[in-house]
C-alpha cells in the first residue's frame, strides 16, 4: 500500500512535465480542407485539436489551417504553403521568450500574442528573401519559394 502511494506521488510529481511535452506549443483550432504536419520526416494529416510541436513543419495543398500558440500568438496558413516552427519559448517568469517561424513558401497571417507584447525583439519571421521584425500586431506574408 505504502509503495503504491509512493508511486502515485511520483506520478503526480512528473505529470506536469510529461503533459507539457504532449501538449506541444500550439493547437490546431481551425481547419479548411486538409493540412499536414511533418515530424522528423513523418507526414501526418492534421485534425482540429491536434498539438503542434517545436521544429514541426506544417504543410498545406488546397487547404488552410489556423493555429493558436500557448502565449496567444496566432498563425494561419493558406493553401500551397510550407512553414517550419523553429523556436518557441514562453516562460515569462524566467525571462525566456522566443518565437521563430520560417516560411519556406506560401501565404501566412501572423497575429501577435504575449511574447510580442513582453519582448518584441524575441519575435522573428524568417523567409528565404528577408526577415520580418515584428512590433505588433497583425500582418500577412507571401513567399514564392524555390
Amino acid at each position: 500500500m505504502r509503495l503504491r502511494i509512493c508511486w502515485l506521488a511520483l506520478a503526480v510529481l512528473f505529470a506536469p512535465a510529461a503533459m507539457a511535452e504532449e501538449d506541444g506549443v500550439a493547437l490546431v483550432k481551425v481547419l479548411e480542407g486538409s493540412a499536414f504536419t511533418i515530424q522528423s520526416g513523418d507526414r501526418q494529416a492534421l485534425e482540429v485539436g491536434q498539438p503542434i510541436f517545436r521544429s514541426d513543419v506544417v504543410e498545406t495543398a488546397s487547404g488552410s489551417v489556423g493555429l493558436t500558440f500557448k502565449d496567444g500568438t496566432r498563425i494561419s496558413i493558406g493553401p500551397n504553403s510550407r512553414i517550419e516552427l523553429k523556436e518557441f519559448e514562453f516562460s515569462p517568469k524566467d525571462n525566456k521568450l522566443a518565437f521563430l517561424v520560417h516560411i519556406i513558401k506560401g501565404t501566412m497571417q501572423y497575429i501577435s500574442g504575449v511574447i510580442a507584447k513582453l519582448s518584441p525583439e524575441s519575435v522573428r519571421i524568417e523567409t528565404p528573401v528577408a526577415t520580418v521584425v515584428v512590433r505588433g500586431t497583425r500582418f500577412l506574408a507571401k513567399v514564392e519559394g524555390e
Partner: protein
Amino acid sequence: MTMVFRTVQTIISSVACYGRIVLLPLLFLSACAGQGNVFVLLPDENGKVGSIEVVNDAGRQKIDQANQSIKVAGVTQAPEAPQTLDEAQINKVWSGAIQTTPRGPRTFILNFRSGTDQLTEESIRQLPGIFEEIKTYPVAEMSIVDHTDRVGRAEANAALALKRAESTRERLVEAGLELKRVEVSSHGENNPVIPTADNVAEPKNRRVEVTIR
C-alpha cells in the same frame, strides 16, 4: 533579343494579371499586387495598427499604416518602398489564411481579498461569464496565471502567486469547470499592467489572469 522577349513576357503576364489592357500604364506604377514576396501590415481585431520591419542584407523597410505592403524581389535586393493595397488585392492572395484565423484569446482579471488566496465577491460573480465564454471556443484552452508587483523577494512573491493561481483553478473546478486543457503558472513580476521600479507597491499588478484561447 532576350531583353525584348522578357519585356513582352512581362507585359503578357501583367495583362493576364489585370485582365484589361486599358490598365496597362498603371502596371508600371503598381505592378501586380501580391505577386512575388510580399508583406502586408493589417489592423488587428481591435483596429490597432502596429508596425513591421522587413530586413535583408541589401536593406530594410518599415511600415506602420494599415494595408501598407513591402515587396522583396530577392535576397540580394533591398525591400521596396511601401505601397498600399486595397481589400480586394489582399483577399485575392490571402483569403485562405484569413478565413482560418483562430478566435482571439480573451482574458478575465480576478482579484483576491487582501493577503489571502480567496477571490473577492465581485470576482466570484464573474465565474459564470467565464464558463459561457469557454463554450464559444473550438478546443478551448485556459491558462490561469498569477502576477505580482515588485514588493518583496521575487521567490516569495512567486510562491504566493502560484498558490493563488492553484486556488483559482480549484475554485473554477468547484464552480463546475470541465476543461481538460488548463495550465496554471506564474509570471511573477515580469508581466505587469503598469511597469514600476523595484519595490514599488502596485495593486493593479497583483492579479490573476484567466485567459481562454
